[in-house]
């Protein structure tokens, strides 16, 4: 790559890095503020709290019934992950392997739930779910969360499946594998890395999905992020530190999965998946 060495461009480069550093510093400070606060006793008008304690975690755990919330969160998240994997991978396989009339329209239909923000389609969706009697229940939350995740799995898996040579499948057939054996011995082992990566990304996104869960959850089907929202919303009733403790618990929950996911996928994938498909649909 070409390096420019004039004073002006050096100044410009320094400026760009300063802005980047400023942004990152603030992001880290925001996170640190939450963590420090959650361990602090009294924190008023000083740089750091007077003393440190862990009692807010116990308080928060009991106050917000976090054991229950966590169980519900993971039940919902894993159900969403498994169902979106099943629905998404099968559809992605068909999309990757067959050209059929109307394929572009189908792709557009799969793309829309990723492009329309959840709050926009969530309100009519919640209306329909409540009308059908699943609003506020476990399955209502699962259904709502599947709306963006199924298309997400499809879009992640299509290029992954496309890069597997269809001749390998042809070879398996010629050498005597029927549909089931083809799937069991050839397709499944080859697809597994991609499927796992896609499902991890779904997991990370579902843990953090606020809007759809907020719109469809009832008191017994809240996930951690919604519980966090309500506790911040009703702040004043409870101490700031116990809310921060809950925020840290939430943060740890999603960061664990993020770290696992990052071992397998490029960070850009968490964000940039819609773009290629957007380009393809135009």
């Amino acid at each position: 790559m070409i390096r420019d060495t004039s004073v002006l461009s050096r100044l410009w480069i320094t400026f760009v890095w300063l802005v980047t550093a400023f942004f990152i510093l603030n992001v880290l400070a925001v996170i640190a503020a939450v963590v420090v606060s959650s361990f602090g006793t009294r924190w008023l008008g000083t740089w750091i709290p007077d003393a440190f304690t862990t009692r807010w975690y116990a308080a928060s755990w009991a106050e917000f019934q976090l054991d229950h919330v966590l169980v519900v969160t993971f039940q919902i998240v894993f159900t969403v992950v498994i169902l979106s994997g099943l629905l998404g991978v099968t559809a992605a396989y068909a999309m990757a392997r067959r050209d059929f009339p109307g394929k572009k329209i189908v792709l557009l239909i799969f793309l829309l739930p990723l492009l329309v923000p959840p709050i926009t389609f969530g309100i009519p969706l919640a209306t329909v779910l409540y009308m059908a009697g699943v609003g506020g229940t476990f399955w209502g939350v699962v259904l709502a969360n599947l709306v963006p995740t199924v298309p997400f799995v499809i879009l992640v898996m299509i290029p992954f499946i496309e890069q597997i040579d269809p001749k390998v499948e042809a070879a398996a057939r010629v050498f005597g594998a029927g549909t089931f054996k083809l799937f069991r011995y050839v397709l499944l082992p080859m697809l597994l890395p991609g499927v796992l990566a896609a499902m991890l990304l779904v997991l990370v996104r579902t843990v953090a999905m606020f809007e759809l869960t907020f719109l469809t959850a009832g008191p017994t089907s809240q996930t951690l992020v919604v519980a966090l929202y309500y506790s911040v919303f009703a702040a004043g009733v409870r101490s700031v530190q116990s809310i921060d403790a809950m925020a840290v618990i939430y943060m740890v929950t999603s960061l664990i999965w993020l770290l696992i996911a990052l071992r397998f996928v490029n960070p850009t994938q968490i964000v940039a998946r819609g773009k290629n498909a957007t380009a393809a649909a135009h």
Partner: protein
Amino acid sequence: MSLASLSFNQLRLERMSRAFGTFNALNEIDLTIRKGEFVALLGPSGCGKSTALNCIAGLLGTTGGGIYIDDKRIDQLKPEDRGFGMVFQNYALFPHMTVLQNVGFGLKMRGLARAEIDERSHAALALVRLQGQADKLPGQLSGGQQQRVAIARAIVIEPPLVLMDEPLSNLDAKLRLEMRAEIRRIHNQLGATTIYVTHDQDEALSLADRIVVLRDGSIRQVGTPRELYESPLYLDVAEFMGFRNKISGRVVQAANGEATIEVGGARLTGRALDALAVGDTAILAARGDDVIEGVSGTNAIEAAVETIEYRGREFVGTANTDSGMQLVFHGPRNAELGSRVRLEIDARRALVFAAQP
């Protein structure tokens, strides 16, 4: 039941056709292949040779006609029920399986015992000279080694028919020659009936017992390598078999299976393959190595040298005749560019075709 256990006498394609929409990729192919034969399907890309192979394998459905093994119709069978072996163009090895697992795949699908699978797979690997590589993954092998694995995978199931789809097209020139000999050796050793698709005439000539030339989805000519090399029935087949020089002229003499054409004062004689009468327009076709720069002057035409290359034992050049046709010729000397040379054409090896209307 798998067909693999059946011994058979012949594979018959009866008016086998395949259309993609309105495009006929294969047009009523009739062909009979005997047990033990090595048949090459030869033709330029898009001629339908790979389509034909995929139809026989069952990877593509036919849209007309039938495929028979002896008297049993098989074109409705799924590929996994036909029991054939196949070597794919890019090898199509299973990337997640070891070499041994790749080779043993067909046996495993047939439900054989583990010990027998291993034993036969090792034997097949020995046949393709890949002992010691059994536990590697395909990605760790070179192109030629992957090719050997693909061949071992196809022959280990002892199939009645082995299909090969341009198996050498991904190898470099030297390796291609080596693997060509290898394929022939294995065929001689096992005697498996083989259908071999290629666009390379040298490959077809050196490997096959019989060559089927395809063009635009139809069979143009079937014959032994020698028949095709020496007596192509059509001008386009001739071109494909290396008759690169085409000289068109008017027939001045036609008798006893020979014809003489006149072009710009020169008279050229060759074997007549079409019924020709004096006065017809005809095309004389000759291979580059049958057009020699010489001095004797019989059956010769004058041309101006345009390019000349040193090829070791001889020189190969192009030259333009006065009527504007470009000829490839071989010669003993480094002829000067632009100089006029006399090109002699071997009358016994040149062919005269009627000009296409």
